[in-house]
């Protein structure tokens, strides 16, 4: 305790700013008041600096010395409110009997707690050093394995390149002998296409003349309106939308445009109209109705349903199946060349896969090597280690640097509470908090995530699991990796100030 005279609620370091022999200027410099306005229970300064010892200013600060324990600054709204906030009780001077001075006791407890922590850190530090050693060793092993993999990769690439060259050679040969077959096929395909096109035009022309009731070689809206085939949604009426669908924005369409644009679209409907595509219609319709009923229960918007059904009813174009080359029959010599090329392709694929596998391994090793296991690799050996914690309802599992899960004791699937994200401690305490993010999404909410707060402990275990916010979990984890006796001694000396 100091004997320097200072107004109530002022810390030693600020005492010099309050001089009884001078007028007082607010810390923000805006107002100067007679010194007897300081602590007169009326707020004159916007920054609250004139009332350090009363509750007059909303934003004021009251300093308690708390001799025997830690000094403290409290908001001045806690001065004389009947609640003891300072352990020395000085905040309740209006009714001094309200609070006892508990600083000695609290200081003693705080020092004992600090000592306990220091001892723990000291004991745990040995284990931590072991972890660091193992971590570094593990890292070195990884590095060695990685360099071996790099060598393997070079070798594998070489093999792949050899196989590729062989493959290219044989495929060129294969191409040559197959060209004859392909040319023949192409010719046949073209012929068929030509035939079809002609048929389409012929058919289209017939229909056009049928629709063009006044034979003026132009189809008008009026002519179209009476044709059932244009009633795309089969509602018994050819409406504006349907006309636009088939004719575009034009009022009419000439024969040429009809054949090139309208007919290909219309044909399926025209055919359907004539019953050409009605294979097994009766059965299908029954089925449709059943599903219809079912969907209606779920979807209230029946309009949507009808539209979907209309499209379902559309006869599908049947894709002409292209026969795969392999299934064709070649003469013996050609077949041999094809077989050789196939074998070369297979070998090349295998070689390529081998390279990919090695590369993937390398990436994994690199990722592990890049993973941040603490300043001295003290967390490296914990990677993949899984811990469990049970409460009344759930079993929680934390696999360090991997993921967090939860399983109900009443059964049910495991729920992911997050995958390894990052270290997330604040400032210089980066390695005190882990975040596991992107777990299973909550109903109506975000993806689950877990925060792991790490404390020094003699063994690695979960101390508690809670869900402070919906779908945001909190794990308190103890591990020797977090023990540090240098840190602890610093803390202790700070407490004793």
């Amino acid at each position, binding site marked *: 305790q100091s004997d320097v005279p200072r107004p109530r609620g002022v810390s030693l370091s600020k005492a010099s700013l309050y001089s009884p022999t001078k007028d007082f200027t607010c810390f923000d410099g805006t107002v100067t008041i007679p010194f007897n306005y300081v602590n*007169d*229970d*009326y707020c004159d300064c916007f920054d609250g600096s004139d009332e350090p010892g009363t*509750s*007059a200013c*909303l934003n004021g600060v009251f300093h308690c010395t708390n001799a025997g324990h830690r000094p403290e600054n409290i*908001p001045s*709204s*806690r001065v*004389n*409110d*009947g*609640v003891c906030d300072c352990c020395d009780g000085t905040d309740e001077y209006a009714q001094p009997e309200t609070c006892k001075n508990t600083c000695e006791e609290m200081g003693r407890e705080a020092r004992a707690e600090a000592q306990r922590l220091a001892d723990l850190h000291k004991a745990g530090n040995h284990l931590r050093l072991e972890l660091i050693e193992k971590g570094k060793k593990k890292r070195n092993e990884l590095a060695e394995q990685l360099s071996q993999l790099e060598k393997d990769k070079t070798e594998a690439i070489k093999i792949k390149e050899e196989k590729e060259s062989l493959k290219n050679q044989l495929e060129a040969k294969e191409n040559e002998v197959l060209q004859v077959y392909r040319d023949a096929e192409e010719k046949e395909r073209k012929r068929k296409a030509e035939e079809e096109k002609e048929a389409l035009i012929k058919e289209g022309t017939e229909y056009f003349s049928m629709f063009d009731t006044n034979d003026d070689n132009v189809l008008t809206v009026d002519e179209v309106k009476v044709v059932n085939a244009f009633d795309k949604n089969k509602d018994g009426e050819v409406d504006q939308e349907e006309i636009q669908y088939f004719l575009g924005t034009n009022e009419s369409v000439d024969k040429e445009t009809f054949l090139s644009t309208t007919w290909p679209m219309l044909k399926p409907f025209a055919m359907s109209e004539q019953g050409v595509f009605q294979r097994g219609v009766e059965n299908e319709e029954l089925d449709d109705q059943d599903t219809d009923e079912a969907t209606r229960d779920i979807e209230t918007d029946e309009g949507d349903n009808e539209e979907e059904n209309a499209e379902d009813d559309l006869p599908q174009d049947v894709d002409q199946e292209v026969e795969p080359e392999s299934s064709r029959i070649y003469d013996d010599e050609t077949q041999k060349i094809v077989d050789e090329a196939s074998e070369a392709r297979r070998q090349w694929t295998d070689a390529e896969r081998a390279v990919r596998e090695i590369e993937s391994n390398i990436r994994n090793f690199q990722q592990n090597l890049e993973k941040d296991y603490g300043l001295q690799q003290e967390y490296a050996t914990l990677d993949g280690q899984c811990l469990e914690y049970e409460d*009344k309802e759930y079993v929680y599992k934390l696999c360090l640097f991997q993921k967090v899960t939860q399983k109900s004791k009443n059964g049910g699937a495991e729920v992911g509470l997050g995958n390894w994200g990052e270290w997330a401690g604040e400032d210089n305490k980066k390695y005190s908090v882990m975040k596991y993010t992107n777990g299973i999404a*909550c*109903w*109506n*909410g*975000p993806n689950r995530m877990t925060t792991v707060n790490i404390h020094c402990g003699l063994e690695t275990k979960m101390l508690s699991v*809670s*869900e*402070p*916010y*919906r*779908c*945001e979990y909190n794990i308190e984890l103890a591990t020797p990796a977090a023990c540090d006796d240098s840190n602890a001694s610093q803390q202790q000396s700070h407490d004793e100030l």
Partner: protein
Amino acid sequence: VDRNNFKTCDQSGFCKRLRPFKPEKSQYTLNLDTVIVHGNVLSAEVTTANTEAEKKVPLWKYSLTLSALVDGTFRIQVDEADPIYPRYRTQLALDGEPKADGLQLVSKEGGKVTLTNTQGHKVLITAEPLKFEFLDQNGDVAVVINENSQLLIEPLRLKREKNDEDEENAENAVEVEEEGTWGENFKSHHDSKPRGNEAVSLDVSFPDADQIYGIPEHTDKFALRTTTSGEPYRLYNLDVFEYELDSRMAIYGAVPVLYAHGSKRTVGVFWHNSAETWVDVVNYADGTVVSSLVNLVTGGHKRRVDARFISESGIVDVFVMLGNKPADVFRQYTKLTGVTPLPPKFSLAYHQSRWNYVDEADVRGVDENFDVHDIPADVIWLDIEYTDRKKYFTWDSEKFRHPAEMVANLTAKGRRLVVIIDPHIKREAGYFLHEDATEQGLYVKDKDGNIYEGWCWPGSSSYLDFFNPAASKYYSERYRFENFPGTSKDVHIWNDMNEPSVFNGPEITMPKDCRHYKPPQDGQDGLASYWEHRHIHNEYGLWQIRATNEGMLERADHKYRPFILTRSTFAGTQRYAAVWTGDNAAEWGFLQASVPMCLSLAAAGVSFCGSDVGGFFKYPEPELMTRWYQAGAYQAFFRAHSHIETKRREPWLYEPSTTALLRDAVRRRYALLDFWYTLFYEHTLDGTPVTRPYFQEYPNEEETYTIDDQYLLGDKLLVRPVLEAGAKSVKVYLPGRDTNTLWYDVDSYQMHKANGYFNQEVNIAKIPVYQRGGSVVPRRERVRRSSTLMANDPFTLVVALDANNTAQGSLYIDDGETYEYKNNKYIYAKISYEPKQMTYTLVNPSAQFSSRAWIERIVIAGIRAAPRTARLHHGGRSTALQMTLHRGNDVLVIRKPGAPVSEDWSIQFAE
């Protein structure tokens, strides 16, 4: 909302049946020979003629009473003269038997009876067709009943057994039973309707009215709209999941009171009925009303509103309140149904709730975080998860092992706990409440007389029948500290789900044919021996909160004021509980709706109203959250609450800049807490709303009649919450043009002359609030952790001058939690400012309360000629005071007058 779960008028048998009923002329006739006027009551017989045109109304006899009540109010009751069994009369809405006024028979001639009360209001009863006209003190017709001939009482009948083939009973045989008379279906639910049809209906016309208001609770506008082209307003207490906005659908509350207002007068009608009710409205000024109809009915005069009540059962029992100013009619209504008693002060402060604070550590953490972040709070709430698996009056023994300690930890900082207690009871063997209720017969019965089982939070549940005095008494006793361990006088109660909510019931509530207790009477058995749920439905929650209130009074020997929050609301609810607007969502629309919804409830007696700040469903982004806190700080019930499946959102979980805005909003509330407390005290004196529509104070200013996004607190503060996303400015209406009213921005003391709308620029920190020139508002600027801790703190008086440089205000102080104020332990002072002197005078000198509080500052806004000197005169001493004049905005600040709040004083000013 899933609308399929709730009935339209067409799906509600009696509404469908009666809504089209509009005969050429009423078949009801007053039998003039039977008229007797005795004391304040006219009684007479009314009969119906069995005309060919209207078979719906059979020849029947009814008894009519018309009584004159104090304060310009009349009551008309029409019941069957000789019903086959009694019809239900709503029991708890009225705050005791209304007081009688004198009633004098003026004349009985020409088929008309004329009566007058002692205040000069007249009633003209036309005998045939029956019509009641109520005349204001100027002799003008103010209210007409049965003008549209829609008075109807369906007489009770006996159900004829099918095997009854009595040929002689020819008359009955002719009568065709309408389908649905003896049973109705809705979705998969069957209503057995053992009494058949028993609906009542009545129309009321309001000549000269521009707008009508009332019949909460709906999400519609404050001013009611014409319903002709759609559904009527529905009054039926329902738990509507994700209720929709701008709707006339029924939700949690039903208060059947209507007010009609125009520049000529304000009148009101209270339809005293607790059954399902539909209300149709026709406003002849409304664009949707066909003009030919307007001309026909009003002779081209557009100012008139008609309303019509249709209820499923009960009698015709209607109170006519003749105003004739808005404040008069609001007062008249609370004279009938009671005022909100003075709430414990903490309940007007900030409440922090969530479904759910998961355990004691969570509660402690939330409590501590308010201090860490320097945000005041008075109450932490626990939703249903604190119980042992939804068994009320128990605790989850894992998560809440030490409830008493938890409460003590809160009360150490002047805070309270509110816990939820719902009316459904878990049907679980070994649960004392369920076993006692089963054994003692305290549950509601189903249509066959067995205990009714429904589904609610706990799963299979039964419902206490509070109509049984033994059930109410038993329930009250559960609140005793020894019966509910861990609670204390500082634990208050939230009664939720009391519509009642029944997850598997018709419209998510109790079947209408469930049976409630009726006191046994000789010769009454069968249908006469119980009430059906249909009769009492809207009243159910009121019976629950009454029992809760009784229990909370008894647990503390009637020393401490209880705080109760209820969701279900009916006429009279205000006597026991505060009300919130139920399960809203974090959307701007719900923030907007909270203002008219609470204005409407306040006009219907329930001033203590608020919405879940931040929204119950969904997550409020920072801007919405900020605006909601800012709005909530100026609504009576100020509680943040959220759904269990939503992201946590305590104020400190936002970015620091948002947290700072939320802190500022809450602090504004605490600074004005004594102003709120004084308003609620004054409400107990005059019964007028604490939160008021503009037209209450400015009844002649027509532009204000439909304003419901801004309002007044008392007659002193004007609040225009920012209810729109991204607002850079808001339209504020400043009423009082005719009286040269001035309004001062409370942030800057900038003066505005009342001249209708102006644009107020806003940033995210701005809450447009104005103090009326001519008022004094007390503030406490030392905001602490809770209101309790501020009890001894000094006051700042803000004096806003009117055009004559005067101002008046008041201040009420007591211990904040007991009934000692009823023993004259309080301070109620009138504060008056004139250019030469300011006085502080105790209204009732025999009332005394010792308070260490004092006046630390007086701020006088709008001062043009500042005095040179000021002297405080108090207790025979005179002290010179220091003043500072702020030229920029004409504000004079008197520094530290140090005057006490518990004694008279004055300040003399000199040039």
